[in-house]
């Protein structure tokens, strides 16, 4: 409960800047580094998953465009390539600091496990980053310089790059959850984890669960975004073939992927209960060892229960013994170890507990949205389902919310460990790091990334406005002479 134990006096917020700086300088290097890493990865993950989720969609429309010559695919490709291009730069800009932070902020972590994790991170660069960056150059700038086939190939390679990049990053992260294939060697007073079995280390028990869950979550998030944007344009112009196509595609994909995510997530939960029982207990706010219920809905009855949820004090709608059943793989009377009975301190239970509830709740909402949309599609009046389209627009960012909350469960639920059972977070911080340094860069990242997000949204708003202007009411977009499958030219008055 390190996060909770630091108190920032509220009165200081309104005081002079000097007071504020003095107050924030109380942040220990550890806490400042954790918040900084958590915040930067929160922003980065949005753009990383945008690339991961959008890539298959872009490949699909590019292939369709080249195969059928149908202009509505060119139109979708043009719009989403612009979003992808800006999102990719955002992903690069926010991603580059992450790797360096292992050295700057978590130096002891890097020293201890660098031999295991430096390799996969360099594989990511060699296999994925170059491929992605080079192919994106072609995708954004090369439409009229290369053959159709090469252009399709470049869209595929951008996607392959994005998925390979996630592959190696999740190899690293899953190893931190379920480390395998190493031994601890102590030399001259320092302990390092030495690789003994690369296959066991890279394909550790958590890896397949994490990779499938995360990639599918990215697809769901992007599908909701595509659905929301398509709903907006369809409401602007019901005749838009391009956006009706996107809408139909999105609702069907949403139903399939979100249903799969629920089934997969259920099994994943069982795996977490096996391998990280303390995380599972935090997800259910289960303190005392014994039979455990599964809380479908939890409502805090007093403010305290928000910051300190304890299963027994919450108003819940629960399935009796279901958590026991889940964790043990079928035995409703099985004991689930409570948080009080671990030899190490608990993770920040409130964040884990509520993040998990939010993620699961959103997951069921996505299934409902997918089913509702697919039903209207089946009935043939999807584009006329006005209320549904409005709900889709409102739900457009929710996939990213679900993805982030899931990530918080994974990472914050791992605490107090940085590497489960091997290295505590507090032990991983660079010994030379000072409060001032760490606080200064933390402030920089908070301000800078908020600015970045604002700039990104402004740019996206411009894309949407331009598209809306092209999408005037009553215009069929295949009659629009500007969509000839070639990129917009830059003219002096552009």
């Amino acid at each position: 409960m390190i996060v909770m134990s630091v108190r920032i006096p509220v009165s200081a917020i309104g005081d002079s800047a000097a007071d504020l700086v003095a107050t924030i300088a109380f942040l220990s290097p550890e806490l400042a580094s954790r918040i900084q890493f958590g915040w930067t990865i929160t922003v980065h993950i949005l753009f990383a998953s945008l690339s991961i989720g959008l890539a298959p969609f872009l490949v699909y429309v590019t292939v369709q465009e080249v195969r059928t010559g149908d202009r509505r695919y060119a139109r979708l490709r043009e719009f989403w390539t612009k979003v992808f291009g800006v999102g990719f730069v955002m992903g690069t800009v926010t991603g580059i600091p992450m790797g360096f932070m292992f050295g700057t902020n978590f130096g002891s972590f890097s020293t201890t496990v660098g031999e295991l994790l430096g390799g996969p991170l360099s594989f990511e660069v060699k296999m994925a980053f170059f491929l992605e960056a080079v192919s994106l150059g072609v995708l954004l700038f090369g439409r009229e310089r290369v053959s159709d086939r090469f252009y399709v190939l470049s869209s595929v390679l951008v996607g392959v790059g994005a998925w390979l990049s996630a592959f190696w990053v999740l190899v690293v992260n899953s190893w931190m959850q379920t480390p395998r294939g190493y031994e601890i060697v102590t030399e001259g007073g320092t302990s390092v984890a030495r690789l003994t079995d690369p296959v066991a280390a890279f394909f550790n028990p958590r890896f397949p669960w994490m990779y499938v869950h995360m990639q599918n979550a990215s697809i769901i998030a992007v599908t909701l975004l595509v659905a929301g944007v398509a709903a907006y344009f369809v409401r602007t112009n019901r005749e838009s073939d391009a956006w009706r196509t996107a809408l139909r595609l999105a609702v069907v994909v949403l139903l399939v992927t979100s249903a799969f995510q629920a089934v997969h997530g259920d099994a994943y939960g069982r795996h977490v209960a096996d391998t990280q029982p303390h995380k599972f207990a935090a997800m259910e706010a289960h303190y005392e060892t014994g039979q455990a219920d599964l809380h479908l809905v939890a409502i805090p009855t007093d403010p305290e229960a928000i910051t300190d949820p304890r299963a027994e004090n919450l108003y819940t709608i629960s399935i009796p013994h279901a958590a026991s059943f889940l964790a043990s793989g079928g035995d409703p009377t099985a004991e689930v170890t409570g948080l009080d009975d671990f030899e190490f301190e608990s993770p920040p239970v409130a964040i884990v507990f509520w993040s998990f509830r939010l993620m699961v709740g959103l997951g069921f909402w996505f299934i409902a949205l997918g089913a509702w949309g697919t039903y209207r599609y089946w009935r043939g009046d999807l584009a006329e389902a006005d209320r549904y389209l409005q709900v889709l627009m409102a739900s457009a960012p929710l996939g990213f919310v679900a993805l982030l909350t899931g990530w918080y469960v994974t990472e914050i639920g791992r605490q107090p460990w940085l590497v489960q059972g091997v290295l505590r977070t507090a032990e991983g911080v660079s010994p030379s790091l000072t409060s001032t340094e760490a606080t200064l860069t933390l402030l920089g990242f908070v301000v800078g990334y908020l600015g970045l997000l604002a700039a990104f949204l402004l740019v996206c708003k411009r894309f949407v406005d331009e598209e809306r202007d092209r999408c005037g009411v009553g215009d069929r977009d295949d009659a629009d002479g500007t969509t000839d499958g070639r990129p917009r030219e830059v003219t002096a008055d552009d």
Partner: protein
Amino acid sequence: MTEALSATEPALASTSTYLVESLPELWFGLVVATFGVYLLLDGFDFGVGVLFAEADEAERRRFLAAFGPLWKANEVWLVLFGTVLFAGFPAAYAVILSRYYLAVFALLLALGLRGLGSKFRGERDDERWVRFWDRCFVVGSTAAPFLLGAFAASWALGEPTVVAVVPLLAGAATVALVTALGAAFLCVKLESPIRERLVRRGRAATAGYVALGTVTLVASVIRYPALRSEIQSVPMGGLCIGTIACAGVAVAAATGTRYRWFAVATGGLAVAFAAIIGVLLYPAIDPATGTTIADAVAAPLSLNLTTGFAVVFLPLIGSYFVVLYSLFDDPASDSGQYQHG
């Protein structure tokens, strides 16, 4: 530190011996080489950003058209440099990066401003928006090489901070170097009367680099007496002569409108710069703590594995760049040849 726990592993996955005996030294070479390639390639981009400051609107569009498809791929070399250092010398990576904490983040900030500035300026029509991102682009493109040069010099000299005379001089020299690189790159990529000015700037920057480099070296000899023998060694002498030769070729080629030679010669300056850093470091990986290559190198199994990946993928990466640079080989113009993306 590197020796041996068990000899019972299969040969390819040996935990006791490196694939070749000199693998740690080869990895040190790879660290220096990736730094050099990064400085060379992104040096073109930084230089475009520096020269952007005095360009008018039409020129700026041409500059960005030349820069657009290439810079992201170039920037990846920095990440490769970081991960090669991390994978090969994990303990050194941690100590070096946390020592120059604020400089590293300032560099990342500058890179962010450069990338976002170039990408965002064209995305809205609003005049203030364009000016703002232009400024970010210029400031980022100037600050990044300055910080990179200062960081590299502090690291190689074992100076605990970048805010010292020699690192700051090295930073200034690096800005001159990238300006020469950028001028050469734009001379190759652009067909226009503007070349005349670029040639003048490129020549001045090359001369400025040689002058600042000389001052930096002399200052190093004075400030770091312990390093005198390394600075006055044969390899250093060779690199200094090479630098002067490249500078001479660059000036002559620029004057004689042989722009590709201009680019090659300024590229030689960047490579020599990285080699100088390598000579100063060797045999240490972190002179400030006296950590040597042998002290910090990763254990055999990890390094052998990473080497396997490098042997497969580095040639492939080279081929990506051949494809990318030949695809966007012809002179860039602002007349729609490149989508503004």
